[in-house]
Every structure is written in C-alpha cells, then in structure tokens.
C-alpha cells in the first residue's frame, strides 16, 4: 500500500513539474508568434496550465496531511484552506498558548497567513482559467514583447503562482509536522 502511494506521489509531483514546463513553453510560444499565427490561443492555454500546476501542488499537500480535505473540486479547495485548515491551526495555536509554547503559536500563525494566501492564489488562478477556457471574447492583451495579460493578470504574475504556492505550502507543512507529532 505504502509503495503504491509512493508511486502515486512521485507521479503527481512529476505531473506538476511537467505542467509548469508546458505552461512556460506555451508562454514563450505565444510571445514568439504573431496574432495571425494563433498567439491568443497559446497565451490563454499558458494561463490554464499555470493554474493547474498550482492547483495540483496544493491539492497534493492537503492530501498528504488530511486525505479527505483533498476530495473536493476546484471550487471547494479555497474554502477548505480558509475554513478547515485555519480552524485546525487555530486550535493548535490555542493549545500552544496553554502549555506556554511560543514557537508553535508562531508557526501556526504563519501557517494561517499561508493558508489564506494559498486560497487567494487559487481563486485568482481559477477565475483566470475560466476566462481562458470559456470566454474566448476576452482576448489576450499583448502588452509588450515580454508580457501579456488576460483580464488584468499578466502572464509574468501567473508564472509566479506555482513557486509562490510551493513557498506557502512549505510554511503549512512545517506547522503540520509539529501538529502531527
């Protein structure tokens, strides 16, 4: 069982890295092409892939910690982060206060900020992904030779979603390791 889970875990991690690579490739392709050459399509697909790379990394972290928290679709994950994750951290923060442990109190409060930040990244990514896939009328705006925008979000910013998310996930995992002891 453990080994099957291990393979699954590695597989997911690989998917996430590959998806980020694909996104980056699409980003460069969109910047290289002309409007007659379908740069809009490449551009919107880049946003879509950056979102999925981010979503998968956050979902994987939640699954490792509390499997039932990750069984929700895209719409629910931000709510799990804002409600369930924050609630658990807050309870442990209180427990830490009771035994006079300032360290765990700090780790949990960092974790709470991280959970909220992750929820915002997911909301932003989800909204942009919906626009990319379902609102072809909203065109990608090529603002310079290095950047393009979809509904006010630049691809440079979308590019930062996965690494930003993995930073905040690390903060969450650090608090979770203490809680799970």
């Amino acid at each position, binding site marked *: 069982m453990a080994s099957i889970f291990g393979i699954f875990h590695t597989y997911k991690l690989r998917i996430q890295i590959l998806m980020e690579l694909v996104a980056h490739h699409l980003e460069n392709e969109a910047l290289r092409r002309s409007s007659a050459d379908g740069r809009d399509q490449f551009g919107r697909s880049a946003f879509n892939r950056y979102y999925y790379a981010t979503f998968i990394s956050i979902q994987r972290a939640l699954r490792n910690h509390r499997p039932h928290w990750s069984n929700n679709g895209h719409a629910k994950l931000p709510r799990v982060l804002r409600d369930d994750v924050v609630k658990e951290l807050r309870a442990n923060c209180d427990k830490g206060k009771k*035994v006079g*442990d300032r360290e765990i109190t700090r780790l949990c409060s960092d974790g709470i900020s991280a959970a909220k930040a992750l929820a915002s990244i997911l909301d932003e990514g989800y909204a942009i992904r919906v626009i990319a896939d379902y609102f072809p009328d909203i065109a990608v705006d090529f603002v310079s030779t290095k950047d393009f925008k979809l509904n006010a979000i630049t691809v440079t910013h979308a590019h930062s979603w996965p690494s930003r998310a993995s930073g905040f996930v690390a903060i969450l995992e650090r608090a979770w390791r203490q809680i799970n002891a």
Partner: protein
Amino acid sequence: MLSEHELTISLNEMGIPLAGVVISGLETDVSFVFVRVTRDRDNAQRPSNLILHDAKKKLSERGANIEFLLVDDDAQEIESALRATLRRSFDKEIRNLFLSWEGKKGKILIEPKCAYGEDVEDAIRDKIRIFLSQVGIELCSIVRTAGENLPTMLACLSRIRHLAPVTEQLLKTDLISRGFSIPPDDWLRRRLDSMRRSGRIVRLANGSYALTLGSLRALGTIKGRASPDITRMLALARRGE
C-alpha cells in the same frame, strides 16, 4: 442572484475600481471581481479592505456571493525589484523571495537554496529593511520556507504522551524518525530540563520522562480514530504492557 452586468454596475456605483470583467465560476456560485488597487501617500491600500468587506456584505444581502481579487501592480513591481536586489547579493543562499504587505507592514517569504547561519540571516534582514524603508514599508517578519525544523515544545509533549515513560535517547530517535532535526550536544536534555522545571513533565526515578496532569489537560483529546488516547493504548499494547 445578480448577473455579472448588475454586479459591475453596483460596484461602479460603490466607487470600486474594477480591473477586467466580473467572472462567475462554473461549479460554484462565487463571482470573482478583479479590483485595481493603488497606494496613497501613506502606503494605505485604496480601496481599503474595510471598504471591500462592506461591499461584499452589501452584495451578499442581495444574494451575490463575491470574492475580490486584488490586482496590485505597485506591489508586484516592488516585489520583483526586491527579489532582483537580494538575488544579486545572496545568489548562493536565496532561490526565491515573496513580499506580502498590509498597511505599512511587510512580510517576506524566503525560499533558501541552502541552510545559512545567523550572520548571513542578519545581512539579509538588513538589506531587506533598507530596501523596504525606501518605499515606505516597515519590515514585519521574514519567514524561511526551509531550514527550521526543530521540534516545538508541543511536539515534544505529544510524543512524550504517546511513548511515556520515555528516555531522552528514545525520544530523540523517535523525533528524528518523524522528520525533525535535533541539534547535537545537549539540546534535547536542556529542553527536557526546562519543561520539567516549568512543570510540564516529570522525571521518574529511572531517568525516563512522563507528562504532568496539567500538560495532559492542556493537550486535551479528540474523539475518533486519531484520538491520542487510542493511539496511546495501541502503543502500549504493541509494547506488551
């Protein structure tokens, strides 16, 4: 339920500057509103979170569930300038850096390339503080995504509860197996000593440790499969006691 068009009109009337169009989710009733935020001379966010919170509440009374997404070009610009500056000076230590700020207080998240000591940490902090002060932001905290992995007192107490009576050596092995790092020398002994002096644990005649009643109460318990009482019983059974 308000349409995207009605939402846009209402938000315009409230004076909230939108960036792009309002989007409704597919498998959710949430509508996402991108808001262009700017900073006034005191670095306060405009529109403020209070105004946004009120707007959200007013619209929810009319049946709309909205989520504001802030588009903050200034913050992104400051963050990327700070990242470039720090990477230039601490190329060996810093992989990535993120800034989030509220009001005048900035929080920094650093993804390190390697573990670094206090002297480097101080140099990094100074550099960040100087940079941020130039744009009117006060440094509030720096958090590293890796490197800090010592067991907290709460984690130690949880493990002692599970394993009691437990010797220092056994506790150390157990904590390491759970992914914690334990500094060499007598770090753990000093930690145990301080917990004993503050009445969190007792040292038994044979040199092993157990929780005091006060700590047991403070840690509490939960119902269900993950209950510490059950895992404790199972641990005892496994030991054959």
